[in-house]
C-alpha cells in the first residue's frame, strides 16, 4: 500500500465486484429501450472499459450502476449486495464518480471539493484534513500549493486530477468514470492515463470507465466491453483478444486499422525471448576477440564499455580494416531499448537499425540481450496465436449467454423474472 495511507493509519478499500443482470432502461415514449438487457460481471479490482460509438448507451449503462439513471428492469449487485432498491444516496457514497471536465464545484476550493464526500459520511474533522492532503499527494498535486485554490485557477489537467481525488476521497471500492479525459488536450490526456494506471496499481479499485476512444480503452483496460446500439455487448474481452480476434465486423470496424500494430503496444520486451550475443569488453585481448567473432554464428559481436553498456557492433572485417585498433573499428550502438519498452518501440528500433537488431539494456543501461527482426516476428506470431485461442473461448462463452438471453426473451416475461 502507499506509504501515505499507512501514515494516516487506515488501510484502503480494494475493489468490489459488480454484477449487472438483465439491466434495461426504457424511456417513456421510446420505441426501443435505450439500454437493452445488459448482463455483465466485473471482477473486483478490475478496470473495465465501455467503448462504443456515441449514443450507444454506454454512458447510460454506467449511470445505472450508481443509479443516476434508474433502471427500468434488471438487477445491480455490488460485492454480492443487491443495490437496485437501496437508498441511491447511500449507494452513491460508496461509489466514486468522476466525469468529463471534472465537475468540480466552482464556488468551493480544491480542499472543500475533495472533502465533500468524507464530510457527508461524517468523518471527524482531523481525519478529513489529513485525507485531503493525502489525496492531493496521491494525484500528484502539491497540497500546500493547491489546497486553497478555486477550480478556475487550475488547468484542465489539474482540474481532472482534483476530480479523481474527490471521487476517491471517501475510499470507495468502486470508481465510475464517464469520459473523464474527454475534454483535455492529447498530451495531458496521455499523462492522466499514465497517472490512472499508476493509481490503479496502488489502489486496486474496481474501475468502470466509459470512452469512445479505442486506443484509450486498450491502454487502460484489463477488459474492454465493445458496445453497439442499445448497449448490446458486441465483445467483452481482454484488449489482446479484441485486437487479434474481433468478434464481428462491428468490432473490427471499431478497432480500426493496424490492430496487429496496436497489439505490439500491449507486450513488453521482457515478455519475449531475447537472443544472447557473444560480447567482449574493451579490455579483452584482441586474440580473444577474433576467436569470439569466428565462434559466433552471425560473424558479429557486441563490444561493451567498462560499465557493461553496449558500445559497438563488431564484424569480422572491421578489425582488419581498422588495423587492430578497437577505437576505430566497428559501428557505434546508437539505439537501445529497455526491458520495459513495448514491442512497438522495439520494432521501431529494429526497423531503423541498418542491421535489423537492437540491444536490450537493464536499469543502469547494462547489456541484457539482443532482439532482432526474426525473434520479434516469432514472438508476435506466438502472441497472436495465443490471443486467438483465448478470444475464441471467450467468444464461445458470450454466444452462450446471448443464446440464453434470446431464450429468455422468447419465453416471455415469466422466463425473465425466473432468471
Amino acid at each position: 500500500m502507499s506509504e501515505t495511507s499507512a501514515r494516516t493509519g487506515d488501510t484502503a478499500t480494494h475493489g468490489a465486484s459488480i454484477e449487472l443482470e438483465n439491466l434495461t432502461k426504457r424511456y417513456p415514449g421510446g420505441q426501443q429501450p435505450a439500454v437493452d438487457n445488459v448482463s455483465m460481471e466485473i471482477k473486483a479490482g478490475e478496470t473495465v472499459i465501455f467503448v462504443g460509438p456515441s449514443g450507444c448507451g454506454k454512458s447510460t449503462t454506467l449511470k445505472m450502476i450508481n443509479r443516476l439513471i434508474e433502471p427500468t428492469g434488471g438487477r445491480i449487485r455490488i460485492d454480492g449486495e443487491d443495490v437496485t432498491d437501496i437508498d441511491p444516496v447511500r449507494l452513491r457514497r460508496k461509489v466514486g464518480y468522476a466525469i468529463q471536465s471534472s465537475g468540480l464545484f466552482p464556488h468551493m476550493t480544491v480542499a472543500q471539493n475533495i472533502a465533500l464526500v468524507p464530510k457527508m459520511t461524517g468523518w471527524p474533522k482531523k481525519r478529513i484534513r489529513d485525507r485531503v492532503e493525502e489525496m492531493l499527494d496521491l494525484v500528484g498535486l502539491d497540497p500546500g500549493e493547491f489546497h486553497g485554490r478555486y477550480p478556475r485557477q487550475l488547468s484542465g489537467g489539474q482540474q481532472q486530477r482534483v476530480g479523481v481525488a474527490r471521487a476517491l476521497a471517501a475510499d470507495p471500492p468502486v470508481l465510475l468514470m464517464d469520459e473523464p479525459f474527454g475534454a483535455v488536450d492529447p498530451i495531458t490526456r496521455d499523462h492522466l492515463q499514465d497517472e490512472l494506471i499508476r493509481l490503479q496499481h496502488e489502489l486496486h479499485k474496481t474501475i468502470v470507465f466509459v470512452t469512445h476512444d479505442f486506443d484509450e480503452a486498450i491502454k487502460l483496460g484489463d477488459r474492454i466491453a465493445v458496445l453497439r446500439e442499445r448497449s448490446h455487448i458486441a465483445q467483452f474481452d481482454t484488449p489482446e483478444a479484441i485486437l487479434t480476434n474481433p468478434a464481428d465486423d462491428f468490432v473490427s470496424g471499431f478497432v480500426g486499422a493496424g490492430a496487429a500494430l496496436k497489439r505490439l503496444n500491449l507486450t513488453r520486451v521482457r515478455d519475449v525471448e531475447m537472443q544472447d550475443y557473444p560480447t567482449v569488453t574493451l579490455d579483452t585481448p584482441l586474440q580473444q576477440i577474433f576467436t569470439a567473432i569466428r565462434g559466433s554464428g552471425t560473424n558479429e559481436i557486441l563490444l561493451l564499455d567498462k560499465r557493461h553498456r553496449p558500445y559497438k557492433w563488431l564484424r569480422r572485417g572491421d578489425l582488419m580494416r581498422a588495423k587492430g585498433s578497437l577505437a576505430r573499428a566497428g559501428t557505434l550502438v546508437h539505439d537501445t531499448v529497455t526491458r520495459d519498452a513495448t514491442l512497438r518501440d522495439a520494432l521501431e528500433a529494429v526497423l531503423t537499425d541498418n542491421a535489423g537488431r537492437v540491444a536490450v539494456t537493464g536499469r543502469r543501461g547494462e547489456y541484457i540481450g539482443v532482439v532482432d527482426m526474426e525473434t520479434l516476428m516469432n514472438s508476435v506470431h506466438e502472441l497472436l496465436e495465443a490471443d486467438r485461442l483465448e478470444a475464441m473461448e471467450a467468444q464461445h462463452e458470450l454466444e452462450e449467454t446471448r443464446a440464453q438471453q434470446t431464450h429468455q426473451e422468447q419465453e416471455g416475461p415469466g422466463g425473465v423474472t425466473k432468471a
Partner: protein
Amino acid sequence: MTFWEYLGYRHQQLLADAYQHASAVFQCMVLATAIGVLVGVVTYRSDWAGNLATTATSTILTIPSLAMIGLLIPVVGLGVPPTVIALTLYGLLPIVRNAIVGLRGVDPALVDAARGIGMSGPMRLLRVELPLAWPPILTGIRVSTQMLMGIAAIAAYASGPGLGNEIFRGLASLGSKNALNQVLAGTLGIIILALLFDAAYVLIGRLTIPRGIRV
C-alpha cells in the same frame, strides 16, 4: 425659507420619516426575498410552473401602485398592513425571475456530479445550486430594492410610514411657502436612501459571493 433652512428646521421629522421608509423597505425586502426564492426553488424544475410564477409576478407589477394600495385599503385597512402587502408583492418579480433563471442556469453537469457523489436533494440545493445561483438572485434583490424605494413613497396615500408623507403633504399644499421644500426633501431623501442601500448590496455581494465564482 430656503431649502437648507427647511432641512435644519425639520430635520428631526425628516430623519424619523427616512428611518421608517428604510425600515419598511428593508422588512418588505426580507419578506419578498424569502417568498421569491422559495417560489423560485419550488417552480424552477418545471417549465410551466416557472413560467406561471414569472407571469403571475409580472402581472402584479403592471397594476399601478396607487390602485393596488387603494384596492387593499378596504380589505386590510389603513397604515402598515397595505404598505407591507403591496411592497412585498411588487418586490417579488425580479427576485422570482432571477431565482428561476439562476437556478436553471446552473451547469447540468455540476448537478449531475452533485448527485453522483451522493448529495441528497436538499443538500444539493443548499450546497450547490443556491450558492451558484446566488449572484443573479442578489442582482434581483438589488433591482427590487431600488423599485420599492420609489413605490414605498406611494404608501403614504394609505397613511403608511415613510418619506412619502413629506411628498404628499407638499403636493396637498401646493402654492404654500414650504410645499416645494417638502416635496424636494422627500424625493431627495428617497434617492439618498436608495444609493445607501445599493452600496450595502455591493458590500453584501463581496461578503457572500464565493471567490471562486466572483466575476
